[in-house]
């Protein structure tokens, strides 16, 4: 199976008051299509930075990333972000109701989201259709996290990058979201997951990557 995404000698540096920080230092890896890759590592080791680079919210200082064999810089960034989609860790729901939030990604493209599709994505994250009318201020932390994920599923992206999507969830909801990830992988989507839980990695990962001190240790094949 060929590489869908290729990371080639990527370095990312940030200037801070304490000097230069290098969360990613000459990392190289390949992400095959239709695999579920779990990315682990201590806090602050550049896992979210890698997602921002893949989503092209930022550019690497050195090196190149390609998607479908084409450098990210050659892609229309807006289209790329819909395809190689990054679900942020903090669930920021900026519109009033769940329905409005779920409609938002398609409204950006001038499209209307069907109730049927919204019901489907809510179901995938273990929430009932009645949530559509709920105001986001009434939601618990776990519910917000699941609506955040459902909103991204509205895009139906071929690559889904999830930044600790189960961090505020109860065990039953964790199970629902893990099943959703596995189902997405089984449907041919590529899933990248940042997780701090070794048990979760063992449950869902096809491949396990470790990020430590700016270095990526890829390729532990789990299944």
């Amino acid at each position: 199976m060929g590489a869908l995404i290729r990371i080639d000698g990527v370095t990312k540096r940030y200037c801070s008051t304490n000097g230069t920080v290098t969360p990613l230092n000459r990392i190289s890896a390949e992400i095959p299509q239709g695999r579920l890759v779990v990315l682990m590592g201590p806090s602050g080791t550049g896992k979210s930075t890698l997602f921002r680079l893949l989503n092209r919210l930022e550019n690497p200082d050195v090196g190149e990333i390609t998607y479908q064999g084409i450098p990210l810089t050659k892609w229309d960034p807006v289209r790329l972000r819909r395809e190689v989609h990054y679900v942020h860790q903090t669930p920021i729901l900026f519109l009033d109701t769940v329905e409005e939030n779920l409609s938002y990604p398609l409204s950006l493209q001038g499209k209307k989201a069907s109730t049927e599709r919204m019901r489907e994505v809510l179901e995938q994250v273990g929430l009932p259709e009645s949530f559509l009318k709920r105001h986001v201020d009434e939601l618990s932390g776990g519910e917000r996290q699941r609506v955040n994920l459902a909103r991204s599923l509205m895009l139906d992206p071929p690559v889904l990058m999830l930044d600790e999507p189960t961090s505020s969830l109860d065990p039953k909801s964790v199970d629902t979201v893990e099943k959703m990830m596995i189902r997405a992988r089984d449907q041919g989507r590529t899933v990248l997951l940042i997780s701090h839980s070794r048990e979760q990695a063992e449950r869902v990962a096809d491949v396990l990557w470790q990020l430590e001190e700016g270095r990526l240790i890829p390729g532990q094949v789990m299944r």
Partner: protein
Amino acid sequence: MSTTATVATLGFIVIAMALSLWLKLKLEREILIATVRAAIQLMAIGYVLQLIFDADRWYFVLGMIFLSILVASRNSASRGVGIPWIFIRVFVTIATVSGLTLGMMLGLNMIEPRPQEMIPISGMLVGNAMVVSSLLLNRMKENAETMKEEILVALSLGATGAQASRRATHRAIRSGMIPIIDSMKTVGLVQLPGMMTGLILAGTSPVEAVRYQLLVMFSFTASSALVSILLGLMVYPTLFNSAHQFVGWKQRMEDR
């Protein structure tokens, strides 16, 4: 008002300085400097205006308006430090909006093309535009920081820079508009506006003074909206680069 009475107005300053001394506020020096500056600036502008009124030449009027826009833009642009080309953006906004509003007033015969009407009205328009643009820039800078995460999430969801910053821009525009809307709600109930008061003191009938005041307030509403929208539209794109990546303003300042 006689010269003696004008000099006597300094009595109010003496009261303020005495209170400062008594309460040990240490504001006497500041009050003194502000008093001298206000007196010199206003006397100077009084003589300049007298000269312009006597000369009655359109280019003097234009020069005066241009100067006020220049000073207002400089002052307002200081609120947007870090935003690229901010002085030019503010200048274009204030000049365009003031020009349009003034042109409309002249075109619809609301005011006469005389220096005695053009200069005070344009001064108020430019002053209002300056306050609105300062408020807008303050709020936009604040929103660019506080709403950064939201903007990044929107970008990740496939928003363009314009779409991602729409809520932040709308909020800033609203905050620029609210003061004028609020002041219209209470005008005449809480205080009589300065222009109307001045006209009444100068002997104009209250009804005629009200007409001028309405003209000014209504035109302020339109110009506030125009300034907010125009400047907002000119400023928000500078938050992003051509790849719709959020680059912010503070970061740019550090890069320089």
